[in-house]
């Protein structure tokens, strides 16, 4: 096998050399050519790097060549001006960059007439061309392989781990001492809304949004439903929870049933308090609007994620005179909720609601962790802004620091 590979390499070298002989002496072949498996990818890709030439410009062009056993000349995979394709143009952080920023870098990927198979060796060369003259460097063998870890995202992982430790540490702290919690008017109004519905003898309408159970906002909405249902059960008020997703409906049914049990009112629980309408956005909206107009609920809760239906729902609810409390992480719908609802839980307040309503120390600890996380981000933002500004004003290279906060998302 080794002999066969060596012979193949020798043959390809001869092929490249014979082809390169056509070139005149004035064009020098690219130096320090390296071909390697592209790091941190899912395979099917090779990265080529080579040193910057002394005189580069639009007149001098580079060609990426790959040996084709079926042809007498190698395939030209790409051709570009010599003052382009530097390693610094590639969006990679400094800790995974295969070459220094002033060297050239080109990535060969499967597609567009080329199919790189993982585990197969390929001979790749780089040629310099100017006018009709060309000079190719010796070909280099490399094998594409898929990778098991994306080191480009190690900073992201580090941040998640640190934030996770902060949250878990805050939970432990919260078990030992009391944590101050600022007032959230929207959540303080939950009792008021339930009380009002009880006094008027009207039902409460609770919506869990458009998302499915894989969305954190829907989980948060379901958790808040549990807290609300417990208080609703205590007051023996009617609760209506129309759903767009059958799985969310099944989960919410269990949560509501458990809340009634915990409130000591299992007999008041109605199986059909959670019901499915449709998965279609506007059909669901029309149905819920109809429920609002016919049943005239005294309190409407809009928790979870929403899209264009948000204003159609809340404006109809406002027209019936119901007290309305919304909580969403759909930032594009926030203005509509703020405009039409009495109280709006903005973004993170939706996730804080469960802790706020339950007042359990373990839950409150996570809020403290979130605040500490925000403080870290604020500090990073301040430092990043200062460094980016300083780098422009004093021509400093601070990319090694700025890369650390790249792609945190």
């Amino acid at each position, binding site marked *: 096998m080794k002999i066969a590979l060596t012979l193949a390499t020798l043959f390809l070298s001869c092929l490249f050399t014979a082809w390169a002989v056509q070139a005149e002496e004035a064009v020098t072949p690219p130096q320090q050519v390296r071909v390697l498996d592209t790091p941190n990818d899912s395979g099917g890709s090779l990265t080529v790097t080579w040193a910057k030439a002394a005189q580069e410009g639009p007149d001098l062009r580079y060609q990426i060549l790959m040996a084709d056993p079926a042809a007498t000349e190698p395939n030209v995979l790409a051709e570009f001006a010599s003052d382009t394709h530097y390693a610094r143009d590639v969006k990679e952080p400094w800790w995974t960059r295969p070459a220094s920023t002033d060297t050239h870098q080109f990535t060969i990927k499967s597609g567009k007439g080329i199919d790189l198979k993982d585990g197969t060796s390929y001979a790749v060369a780089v040629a310099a061309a100017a006018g009709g003259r060309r000079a190719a460097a010796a070909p280099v063998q490399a094998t594409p392989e898929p990778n098991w870890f994306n080191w480009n995202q190690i900073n992201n992982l580090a941040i998640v781990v640190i934030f996770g430790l902060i949250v878990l540490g805050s939970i432990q702290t919260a078990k030992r001492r009391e944590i101050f919690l600022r007032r959230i008017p929207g959540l303080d109004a939950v009792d008021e809304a339930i009380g009002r519905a009880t006094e008027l003898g009207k039902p409460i309408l609770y919506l869990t949004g458009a998302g499915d159970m894989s969305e954190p906002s829907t989980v948060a909405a379901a958790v808040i439903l549990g807290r609300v249902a417990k208080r609703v059960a205590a007051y023996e008020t009617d609760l209506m929870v129309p759903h767009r997703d059958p799985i969310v409906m099944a989960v919410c049914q269990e949560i509501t049933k458990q*809340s009634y049990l915990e409130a000591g009112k299992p007999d008041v629980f109605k199986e059909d308090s959670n019901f499915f309408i449709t998965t279609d956005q506007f059909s669901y909206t029309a149905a819920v609007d109809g429920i609002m107009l016919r049943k005239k609920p005294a309190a409407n809760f809009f928790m979870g994620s929403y899209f264009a239906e948000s204003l159609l729902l809340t404006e109809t609810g406002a027209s019936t005179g119901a007290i309305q409390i919304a909580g969403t992480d759909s930032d594009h719908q926030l203005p509509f909720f703020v405009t039409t609802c009495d109280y709006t839980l903005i973004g993170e307040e939706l996730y804080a609601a469960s802790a706020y309503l339950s007042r359990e120390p373990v839950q409150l600890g996570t809020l403290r962790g979130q605040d500490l996380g925000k403080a870290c981000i604020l500090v990073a933002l301040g430092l990043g802004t200062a460094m980016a500004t300083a780098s422009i004003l004093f021509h400093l290279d601070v990319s090694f620091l700025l890369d650390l906060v790249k792609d945190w998302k």
Partner: protein
Amino acid sequence: MTFLRRQLPLLITFVTGILFAVQYYVPHPLSEQMLTSVSKWLQIIGGFALVLGVTSLFHIHAVKIRRRESGWGYSVVLYAAIVATMAAGFGYSPAAGQWINGKETIKGAMTAFGWVYAYMMVPLQGTMFAILAFFIASAAYRSFRARSREAAVLLIAAVIVMLGRVPLGEHLIPISGDITQWILNVLNASVRRAILIGISLGAVALSLKIIFGVERAYLGGGKE
């Protein structure tokens, strides 16, 4: 029983939570394949869950009809619409000489199911969406009444942005376009990003709580 209702779901949540958090950092095709397989599982579970949903829908409206509750006539319409649409979707098309199988067109000709979708569903959805324009106007009227300092600021900002977004506004007040861009790119974008940072941290914290079993209310009930 407690093991099946509590510990097992928590264990599954912990294992899958950690597994798919790690999956985000693994570019290997096996990792992608695992994600694709699980996404398909979710679709299959969703399909079965739809049976639950439709059963719930039928049950609610059957009760309404049986008890002759107010508006029970709408429930009859719903039943009729469901049955008619299902018949149109699963029925036989004599013109095409084959079963419709949920297709909207067969050999370029519209099926009965396609007709229901194109001439009933789409216009009805369009109608609901069109109502949005009127609702925006009424909501804007209510919130733009300058009853407080905040509402006054909102009103002024909204007027400037509206002027800057239409050709007439820019013609009348040429600087309105630049001010609009500044409001949107600086004030609006910065506040939006602040909200998004809070949302992201909240979502990560909630995910951690769920993975480590701190938050269990979604299993039905609060603490043990």
